[in-house]
């Protein structure tokens, strides 16, 4: 019982100093990969980068302590980070305190969901996500993740579109005119370092090397170059007007949004009083529609203003007295003392503070990371938000677990460890729950870090405990070193990581196995891309298609007529071009028999009866009938009665014991009769052959002898004795 509650106790059986050393080396190695990667994934999740470190602090340790796998490395991962961002994008602005709070709340919800599934031993629920659906989704997610980093790679700032492809289009347009060369150069350098080191020596932590080199370069060249000016320091009256107009429109939207909230409350109140179809309500709803139209119009106007302001390039000119004036590039007075290079306005989603307008003269860096461990606090719970986030939290739980368990199985295949999926769920659940108390966002198992963990020699989950320890030391002492890390390098790290998620072979493999599975993979892929950033839509389309297909398959199971084959077995006569017996129809049913397919079986049997004029006996080969519900039992009962009344006999072979129990309970066993229930086809045919072939004109029975359907040959053809003599 103690071992069940605290599975990590098993690590310390026969734990030697050698194993401790292996785990320590592995833990440190993984931490070197985890620290830069986690910051990159936090950025992907729409959070400040240091939240990646918070998500790497307690969760890896908790997942290892209470999970099942020894080598699974838990922490921030690309797909879950993307799904977190996608889930929260409609609710809050990325990076805002509300966004962060909701991200932590999702982690708590995901953790509770996973823990409950694990405790209730419902790990099988993950089977609802079939491999083709996951393949389609993961490939699409990889593309979405990679393209979402383009704005950071090129150093451009764009307005998000309603759909992901619109945002990418905006990025492309902006990149053509406003790419920041140094930003792009540092990203390219990071790519080059990571690719080269991976080829030269995969054991070198290429991500960390890229981070160190680019951070040093960024510090040395003064990559970050920011300035805050007042509106009076902007020389161009058009620009000043654009800024003030932006703020006026922004204020207007805020006022109208507040008015809309009040109007909604009034409508709700008056609706209760006068009824929802009263004239007062109709008038108020009309006002609400007009207000919504105005708000949408103003938002579109604001979007255009932001695009114009973001596209502006300014040149700083030093004045006498040391102050700066900013001119639109190309309009500076001749002979001016230029300060810095090109400046751009940093426009977020809020009002512009006219006394402190942020200008960017260089590239974006990670910036200040709060030193110290995250504060421990219970995530805020808002019922409305919880209900809103419930579907996505469920999907993240299942996807996250599926990722973790498939990685754990891959590790276990190499180490021979026995895994317990429900225990792994508990581990993942606890890691997310405890992580949420330390301001972590949702985490899962990482394939790349788990592979590093295994290769580095991890023997037990102590390696993840050491990893958490290294992250803790980083948070306490090393965060100032990360200030100058370029954001474009983090974007490059993400893009390199997701390249491994793209797996075209999985589509081909699904298509080769079953065309409809391939189609589901492709449809899920396409829907995920088209509906992005609403990623849950893509997955739900895939799951819905899988379920529909499953139902269709169960409704139309494979039914084959069997005949004897050359190896003595009974095979599909149509497939192997075999003749069928005139008097015995051997029918193989390849699914469990229940409500959705009983009619299909009945129709097929009646079809066979009508197509075989000399039919005397039907033998149903029931090896694949693993389940028989009430509808199935009733249909079998009716069939037995009808066929026997019509003069045919019916037998069954291959029922397993649980089905025989059902037949006994319902007394169908007695109606079929024991001498008509056989263990296998051969025995059944031997038993029923004689009675069915009395006075038969059939010379060679295809159930006793192999009888192929062949083409007759002209009698003029000379026969070879070796053929006419028959097999020896």
């Amino acid at each position, binding site marked *: 019982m103690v071992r069940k509650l605290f599975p990590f106790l098993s690590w310390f059986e026969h734990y030697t100093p050698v194993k401790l050393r292996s785990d320590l080396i592995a833990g440190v190695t993984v931490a070197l990969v985890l620290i830069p990667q986690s910051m990159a994934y936090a950025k992907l999740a729409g959070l400040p980068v240091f939240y990646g470190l918070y998500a790497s602090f307690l969760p890896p340790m908790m997942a290892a302590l209470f999970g099942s796998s020894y080598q699974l490395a838990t922490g921030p991962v690309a797909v879950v980070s993307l799904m977190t961002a996608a889930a929260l994008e409609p609710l809050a602005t990325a990076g805002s305190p509300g966004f962060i709070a909701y991200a932590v709340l999702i982690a708590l919800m995901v953790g509770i969901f996973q823990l409950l599934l694990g405790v209730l031993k419902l790990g099988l629920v993950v089977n609802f996500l079939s491999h083709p659906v996951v393949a389609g989704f993961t490939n699409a997610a990889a593309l979405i993740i990679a393209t979402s980093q383009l704005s950071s790679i090129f150093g451009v700032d764009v307005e998000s579109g309603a759909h992901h492809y619109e945002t990418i289009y905006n990025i492309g347009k902006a990149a053509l005119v406003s790419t920041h060369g140094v930003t792009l150069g540092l990203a390219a350098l990071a790519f080059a370092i990571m690719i080269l080191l991976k080829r030269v020596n995969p054991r070198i932590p290429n991500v960390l090397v890229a981070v160190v080199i680019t951070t040093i370069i960024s510090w040395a060249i003064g990559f970050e170059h920011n300035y805050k000016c007042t509106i009076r320091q902007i020389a161009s009256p058009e620009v000043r007007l654009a800024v003030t107009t932006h703020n006026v429109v922004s204020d207007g939207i805020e006022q109208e949004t507040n008015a809309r909230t009040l109007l909604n409350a009034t409508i709700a109140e008056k609706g209760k009083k006068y009824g929802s179809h009263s004239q007062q309500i109709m008038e108020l709803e009309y006002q609400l529609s007009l207000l919504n139209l105005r708000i949408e119009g103003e938002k579109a106007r604001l979007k255009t203003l932001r695009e114009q302001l973001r596209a502006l390039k300014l040149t700083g000119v030093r004045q006498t007295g040391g102050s700066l004036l900013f001119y639109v590039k190309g309009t500076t007075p001749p002979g001016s003392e230029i300060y810095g290079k090109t400046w751009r306005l940093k426009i977020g989603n809020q009002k512009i503070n006219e006394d402190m307008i942020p200008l960017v003269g260089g590239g974006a860096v990670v910036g200040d990371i709060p030193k110290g461990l995250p504060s421990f606090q219970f995530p805020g719970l808002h019922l409305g938000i919880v209900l809103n986030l419930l579907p996505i939290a469920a999907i993240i739980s299942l996807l996250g677990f599926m990722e973790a368990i498939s990685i754990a199985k891959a590790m276990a295949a190499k180490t021979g460890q026995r895994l317990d999926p429900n225990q792994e769920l508990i581990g993942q659940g606890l890691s997310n729950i405890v992580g949420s108390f330390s301001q972590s966002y949702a985490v899962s198992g990482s394939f790349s870090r788990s592979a590093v963990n295994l290769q580095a020699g991890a023997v037990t989950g102590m390696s993840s405990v050491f990893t958490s320890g290294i992250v803790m030391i980083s948070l306490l002492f090393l965060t100032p070193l990360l200030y100058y890390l370029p954001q474009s390098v983090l974007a490059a790290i993400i893009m390199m990581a997701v390249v491994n998620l793209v797996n075209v072979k999985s589509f081909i493999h699904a298509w080769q196995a079953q065309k409809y599975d391939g189609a589901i993979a492709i449809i899920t892929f396409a829907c995920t891309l088209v509906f992005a950033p609403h990623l849950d839509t893509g997955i739900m389309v895939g799951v819905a298609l899988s379920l529909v297909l499953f139902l269709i398959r169960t409704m139309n199971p494979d039914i084959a007529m069997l005949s004897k084959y*050359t*190896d003595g077995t009974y095979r599909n006569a149509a497939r192997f*071009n075999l003749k069928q017996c005139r008097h015995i129809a051997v029918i193989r049913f390849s699914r469990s028999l229940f409500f959705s397919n009983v009619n299909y079986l009945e129709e097929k049997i009646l079809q066979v009866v009508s197509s075989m004029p000399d039919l005397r006996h039907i033998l149903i080969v029931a090896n694949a009938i693993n389940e028989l519900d009430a509808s199935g039992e009733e249909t079998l009962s009716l069939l037995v009665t009808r066929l026997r009344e019509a003069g045919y006999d019916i037998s069954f072979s291959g029922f397993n014991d649980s089905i025989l129990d059902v037949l006994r309970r319902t007394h169908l066993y007695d109606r079929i009769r024991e001498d008509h229930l056989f263990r296998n086809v051969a025995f059944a045919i031997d038993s029923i052959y004689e009675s069915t072939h009395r006075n038969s004109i059939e010379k060679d029975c295809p159930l006793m002898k*192999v*009888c*192929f*359907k*062949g*083409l*007759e*040959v*002209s*009698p*003029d*053809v*000379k*026969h*070879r004795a*070796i*053929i*006419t*003599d*028959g*097999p020896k």
Partner: protein
Amino acid sequence: MEIKKAGDLMISLDKYPHIPYWFTLRQAMAEIENAEFEMNGNKCPCRVLLVFDEKYQLLGTVRRRDILRGLEPEFLSNLVIEERKNYFDSGKDQPSKHPAIDKLRESILDRAQRPVSDIMLIIKATVNYDDHILRVIYEMVDNNVSVIPVLKDNRVIGALRSEDVFHEVAKLLLG
């Protein structure tokens, strides 16, 4: 231009190599190695055998590549095709966990004892002896077969090879 018919170009069944379905792959291989046809005064090898049952009904065909496929040892047929190719790729390291190369011969000899009925292809298409050569071409291309049985009064009288059809078309085009 004389329009040839299927019956004009076919090889009569007496002269076309054929075997019973219970022949082993080894026996089928020997039959193919020994059989040959004459074309333009040259001898050309047989590529496809016809398979019959003891009642002399035509059941199917066996090509050389079907025999080769049938000889594949079982331990290899369980791998995906890329792995199988890599196993024998001279530029790649051999997987250490698979049986040594000398066991391959044993496996192949064992597989060679299987009956041809395990690997034969069912007859997909036939032509009548008075069918136009173009009809023959369509059937061959549509069904991707290189030998097609020729029937007269619904009975097989011979077989038509794609080489003979091709040769006939070449004569028309090249003179």
